């Protein structure tokens, strides 16, 4: 039912995990063979040319990130794969880990070679035990086949990969908190600078990438940057993207679709339209920390820049759709409660500010708010956004900021009616 080229999901079969043999049959580890004949620098350049941007939410250009990495520095250097995936509405990495762990491993070996990393860690959400076992099995297979370990494919390059099961908190997805977690410390984010590339895991240069980001690498090596760019429907975009659908849709599964696909097509063709024939009201386009889009945005191409232009973000492309019967104040309150609970408690605006926002939304949702509360809410969004230590609090303000911007009337209705108008 998906007519678009399948790259990351090309081996995916329902309920199955690709073994090494079937992975190799469809061209698996050819990218690695090719990469090992290139210089690390050539690989970085290739990835830069491909236009691949991070799939973990922040969308930083991967090749540029790699080019900052001190790959020539002596001593240990690490590549860390971020598979924390605790953003509400996001479950795409899990699909990849379930279906095709070798694709990640191949990507990691190539990335490690490009970065000259000496070891790699795959950091997985606590709930992804099945995935962890898949990856461990795949690591063993890859090692036995010479794709991992000492002297990989006779190239002289060595790499070991380790699976780490997270203790499981949203903040562990933040890359520096993740590094603390990997070290066995409390996962507060770390101050930057120094950036992980300078002083990361155990004080050594470290590069962190998302599962999906790394999974793309072997394909880019195999087919070249132009091919990759052309996968996207927008001119400036490149590659496919996994869209994890959820919410009030008829179909809530994960699809691999080209970047730049219009939101309408995602909702109607792939999501099968809104449940019970209702109307589309809004969606979170890329996870719980991205500002809402409304019906007026349905024809927007789903890609990094177009979404930023309308004040949102593509984030993880976990699209959560709300139908016309949904109270957006209630939705937002629910999200902020999540963020307030998941705040690591390190910095003041997030630790003490999010409960305050949550308390205000609670008040308004229950019809107990007044206009001062509304003003205060708007102020606190400003006072938190861009003031916190890491991006969690800022992300938490995404939905609130867009609630104020896009659903002002709905907020006012709560106040005027003295109760939630959707009750």
């Amino acid at each position, binding site marked *: 039912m998906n007519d678009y080229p399948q790259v990351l999901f090309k081996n995916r079969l329902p309920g199955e995990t690709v073994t090494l043999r079937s992975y190799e049959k469809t061209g698996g580890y050819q990218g690695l063979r090719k990469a090992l004949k290139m210089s690390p620098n050539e690989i970085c350049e290739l990835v830069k040319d491909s236009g691949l941007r991070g799939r973990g939410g922040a969308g930083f250009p991967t090749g540029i990130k790699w080019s900052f990495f001190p790959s020539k520095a002596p001593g240990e250097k690490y590549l860390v794969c971020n598979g924390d995936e605790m953003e509400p509405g996001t479950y795409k990495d899990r699909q990849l880990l379930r279906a095709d762990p070798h694709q990640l491993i191949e990507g990691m070996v190539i990335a490690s070679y490009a970065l000259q990393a000496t070891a790699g860690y795959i950091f997985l959400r606590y709930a992804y035990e099945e995935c962890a076992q898949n990856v461990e099995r795949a690591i063993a297979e890859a090692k036995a086949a010479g794709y991992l370990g000492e002297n990989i494919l006779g190239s002289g390059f060595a790499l070991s990969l380790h699976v780490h099961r997270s203790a499981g*908190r949203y*903040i562990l997805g933040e890359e520096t908190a993740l590094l603390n977690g990997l070290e066995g410390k*409390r996962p*507060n984010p770390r*101050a930057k*600078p120094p950036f992980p590339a300078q002083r990361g895991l155990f*004080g050594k240069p470290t590069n962190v990438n998302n599962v999906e980001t790394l999974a793309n690498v072997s394909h880019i090596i195999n087919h070249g940057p132009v091919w990759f760019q052309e996968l996207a429907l927008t001119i400036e975009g490149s590659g496919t993207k996994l869209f994890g659908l959820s919410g009030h849709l008829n179909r809530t599964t994960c699809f691999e679709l080209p970047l730049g696909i219009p939101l309408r097509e995602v909702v109607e063709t792939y999501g099968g339209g809104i449940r019970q024939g209702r109307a589309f009201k809004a969606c979170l386009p890329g996870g719980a920390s991205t500002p809402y889009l409304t019906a007026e945005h349905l024809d927007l191409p789903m890609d990094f820049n177009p979404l930023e232009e309308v004040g949102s973000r593509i984030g993880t492309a976990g699209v959560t759709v709300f139908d016309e019967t949904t109270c957006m104040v209630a939705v937002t309150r629910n999200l902020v409660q999540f963020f*307030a*609970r*998941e*705040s*690591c*408690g*390190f*910095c*003041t*605006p997030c*630790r*003490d*500010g*999010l*409960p*305050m926002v949550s*308390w205000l939304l609670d008040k308004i949702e229950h019809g107990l708010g007044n206009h001062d509360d509304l003003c*205060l809410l708007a*102020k*606190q969004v400003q*006072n938190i956004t*861009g*003031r*916190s*230590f890491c991006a969690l609090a800022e992300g938490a303000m995404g939905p609130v900021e867009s609630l104020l911007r896009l659903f002002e009337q709905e907020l006012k209705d709560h106040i005027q009616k003295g109760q939630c108008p959707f009750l």
Partner: protein
Amino acid sequence: MVNLTIDGKQVTVSKTATIYDAAKEVGINIPVLCYAKKLLPYGACRFCLVQVEQMKGRLIPACTTPVSEGMVVTTTSEEIQKVRKTVMEFLLVNHVLDCPVCDKGGECDLQDLAYEFGSISNRFEGVKFDLPTDEINPLIERNMNRCVLCGRCVRVCDEVVGYGSYSFINRGFETKIATAYDRGLNCEFCGQCVSLCPVGAILPRPFKFKARPWQIKEVDSVCGYCGNGCTVTLGVLDNKIETIRFNDEIGVNDGNLCIRGRFGYAYVNHQKRLTKPLVRKEGQLVEVEWDEALQVAAEGLSNAQNGQGVGILSGARLTNEEFFLLKNLAKTIGTDHLDHSGGECYKGVSEGLNETLGVKASTGTFPQLESCDVILAIRSDFWETHPVVGMVVNQAIRRNDAQLVVVADKRGKLTKLPRARTLLTKAGYELSILNAMSKVLLDEGLAQVDGLQNLDAFKAALSEYTPENVAQQTGVDADLLKDSARKLAGAKKSAILLAYGLPYTAQSKELAAAAANLALLAGIPGRAGSGLYLCGEKANSQGAIDLGVLPAGNGLGAQQMLTAAGEGKLDALYVIAEDPISSYPDRQMVEQAMDKVGFSVVQDLFLSATAEKADVVFPAASFAEKEGTFTNAERRIQRVRQGIKSPGEAKTDGAIISALANKLGNTLSFTGEAAIFAEIGKDVPAYAEFNYHEIGSQGVVWGGETLAPTRRNLVSVSAEQPASADYHLVTGSALYHSGTVSVHASGPLAVMPEAYVELGREDAAALGVNDGDLLKVAGNGVEIQLKAKVDNRLPKGLLFAPYHFGNAGLNKLYRGEAVVAVSVSK
């Protein structure tokens, strides 16, 4: 250097500075809460947010953001003020605001910031915390309802103290600071977290409800305990030290203290302090007036002319000026028998270093340690003897990735520091390991041998000390030993640390010489930033050596004086600030000396075991009651200042010595410490360049930051074989005590109230001993009983007992050996 503009002012600062540092440079004060000078950048409270032209769209934390060229910074604007107000409001959401009953009131950062940024009214009806306070221990009270989660306690305990008591627990709004398993605090009690807590969440219990901060008079002085020479700020109220305060702007210690400096002050106020002179009449010591006591003492000392005359034994806690007066007194009495600190332990400096390097002091300064790449500590006890230097080592490791190598017979705080490498040796073999390291450097051509004297003889003498031989003897891995030697020699800046003191008497000269030999081969002495640190245990151990409180000419040293006295050959003994019966090796010998000597005068704060046997006892003043200078273990001369008056009629050692000299007909009189200090310069050239009144808050270091050796002479030294037995006992310092004074201080006593013998789990299991059981320890023909302390610090067959508790009688067994062969039973 980097140029930037802050609020229109041009600033040029080093490229490692933060915006906050740069602003401070030009007198612009950015409000901070979680920032602390001595801690790594953190950035949690968000008070210090500023605008940076080049980083538009968000506010930038000044305390964590490094400066960059051309930056244009605005530190106050309407927007910034608004944000700071909000941060204030957020912080007050759950704060109890019980300022009226909070000891921090008046010097609380939160109070000050609230005053500056806004009202305490709050638009948010959040919950106030109602957490129980932690007051299980007697020294530190924790009230987490007042905590603002700045993390300073967590960080200082980890980054500086290296203990790691605290951590954040829970998340979000529920976040709080807790100890392991959220139990009561049970730690080293150095009080660093008390010093750094910006609010009243961590407070010193002994000070609870004693005074408001503004009522306290602050007097900056030097800690009277160890040779670290920390600046302590006495908090005085009504002629009583009520607390020790924190000041990270002055002193060599950056505001850091150990439990002794922080909580060990109470002995000064102790009710058992001697307040009146005592003279023995009809067998009893009875209180008399000063004049009578001085008269009796003067007569006793002048009459002491039958045998070898008068011996003078001093402790190392007198000021330099008092040492000077004491030397003067010795001249007046006409005796050459003058010595200090048991006479043996400091020979590493006075002879070991002197023969190798031609100097009698550490060659580097403590602050330099922080930038050393490789640090070799001999004995794990260095942390215990000099805790705040230990903290510098910790920072060198954490901030600058220094490699620490510890040659030790047991594990300890030092060996637990990150990446510390421990060369765990059989007790008493440290010297062999140093020799073997020297041999490695010579054999592998890594040694810097230019200009070294005695190279060939030295090489020959080392022939037996191959790493393999020594490894076999000591149990240390030969490859680790070799690699450590290479690391030491290969480092740009490196340091060797060795502490000395009464419990470290054996082979003190030889061990220091071995360390100096190794240092020479590794190019350490005289190289900027590197140093060989030989650190005395007491506050003015170095001063005693500088001033020459040592046997003159053919004079007797401490051990010889005591032996002579015991044989009835010494006529009189004058003991100052020292309790040899409690602390010197070989108690029987000391007791016999005190019993047999014709006449004895003891001068001390308390009626010590030694004083009890004296004919005359003078009540002396503590460090807090006098003016003068101490010289710490890195040659830093610092001002000691009087905070309080002495109790009763007690007088400073200097005043007593002068009065006695007067009685004995010495008319030399010096008016005040400054005059004496100037006089010292005539005898001790290194001191001549300084003026007493110009000694500032950082002190002055004689010989410069890097003391240049005047000779480079290799001195062959060989190890004594410790006696072999099933069990070996070593003694040493415990972290909570220093010498025998701290056993009168309630703070240290609260944590370590009594003597003990420590043994490893394996031995404890074999002996069927549990923590707290009484153990019989027998050696040198004597048996004593000590409480057992079981842990995993000690290897099999090794026992450790701290030497501070005179009443435990440890020095009946310990006669100055490196290790005492003992038998142990329940």
